[in-house]
Structure formats: C-alpha cells, structure tokens
C-alpha cells in the first residue's frame, strides 16, 4: 500500500469570484488521485460550499484562507484554514442547512468544529474495484 503523503496548498482571497478557482483545483487533485467523475463533482461541490461560507464569514477580514489537499494513499483529506484565528467553527449556529446537508452527504467524513489548529476538515476515499 502506498503510504506516502503529498500535500497541495491553495491560498485564496475572501472573494466570491475566486471560489471557482477552488473548485477547479479540487477537480485537478481529485482527478489525479483516480476518483470517478461523479465523485470528483461531489468533492468539488463540498469544497465550494465551505468556500462560500468562508467568503461570507471572512468578508471583513483582510487575510486569505487556505485549502490544503492531503493525499495519503487513496484517501484525500481537505483542510481549510485561515491565519485570523478570530474565525472559527464557521458553521456553528448556522442557518445554512442546505450547505451543511450537502457537505455531510457528499463527503465520507467532516469535522465542522475541530480544534484551534484549523477551521474545517473533510475527507473522501477512492473506491477501487479489483
């Protein structure tokens, strides 16, 4: 089993017009890992929902946010973070039930309110048919 750990980091401004860049990058990483087209679409949608929330929450913050794609074997973990630690637990007490439903349904696991080291983490594993 391949246990290597590759990491790709994308940094984006808190602006709506750059969410599509997050989607495109997600597509490239997921495609490289061998996810099927339908699952790539699912991951893209989940990433965009988090980006949307970050753009809304961070509109008054000058810093950027980052999306880290960690590839470990056939598992993709996507970690969202921001240097401004005033921003935390972004979906807490949120009325965006549509976004939460979508993210939860499309990813294998999601940490909505992790510890202080990052904002949100979610993962998906490539299904391999042998």
């Amino acid at each position: 089993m391949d246990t290597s750990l590759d990491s790709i980091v994308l940094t984006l401004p808190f602006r709506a017009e750059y969410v599509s860049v997050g989607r495109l990058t997600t597509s490239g990483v997921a495609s490289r890992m061998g996810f099927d087209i339908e699952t790539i679409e699912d991951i893209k949608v989940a990433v965009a929902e988090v980006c949307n929330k970050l753009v809304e929450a961070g509109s008054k913050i000058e810093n950027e946010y980052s999306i880290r794609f960690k590839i470990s074997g056939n598992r993709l973990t996507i970690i969202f973070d921001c240097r401004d630690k005033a921003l935390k637990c972004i979906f807490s007490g949120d009325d965006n039930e549509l976004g939460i439903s979508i993210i939860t349904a499309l990813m294998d696991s999601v940490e909505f309110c992790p510890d202080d080291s990052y904002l949100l983490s979610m993962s998906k594993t490539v299904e391999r048919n042998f």
Partner: protein
Amino acid sequence: MSAGLIIREEVMNDSVRVHLSGEVDIYTSQELKNRLYEIIDTRKADIILECSELNYIDSTGLGIFVGSLKKAKQYGKKISIVNLKDNIKKLFIITGLDKVFIIE
C-alpha cells in the same frame, strides 16, 4: 473567473420559460436572484426553469430557487424545474428540495 451564467426569458401563452445556462455559484447568484425576482414580479405567471444547460449550482443558488418559489406563491403561481442534469438533481434529493419543487 467564473464560467458565468446566461439567463434567457421566453414568454409563453400562460407561463414564462427561463433558460439557465452555465453555473450558479456565489459569484453569479445575485444576478440570478435579480432576474428571477424581476420576472416573477412583472410577469405574474407560472415559471418553468429550463436547466438542460445548467452545469453547476450550489446552496446559494438553491436558496434563490426557494426564495423565488415563495415569491411566486404570493401571486398564486408555481415554479417547475425541467431537464435537470443528474449531478444537480442529486443536490435537490440530498436537500429534500425534490419534494418542494415540481421537477420534470
């Protein structure tokens, strides 16, 4: 930056067919909201959302569909959604909106 959204209005005898082409995301959703609300307010007719060329939608777009439905109901009108692609229909099912809208 975004692939963009094209909205085309086609007035029928007893309804308005709104053709959506491209992507509805956080960047294009305000444009969709403005156009749909304007069409509902001015036409006061049933709305058919033609989505055969709609490639992507997120929760902001779905929220605008819901808001539009509420607005249409104020005039006693309905909104139906036709020709959804599978990836988008999946989001309607996940969020339960397939039971809220008429989807054909």
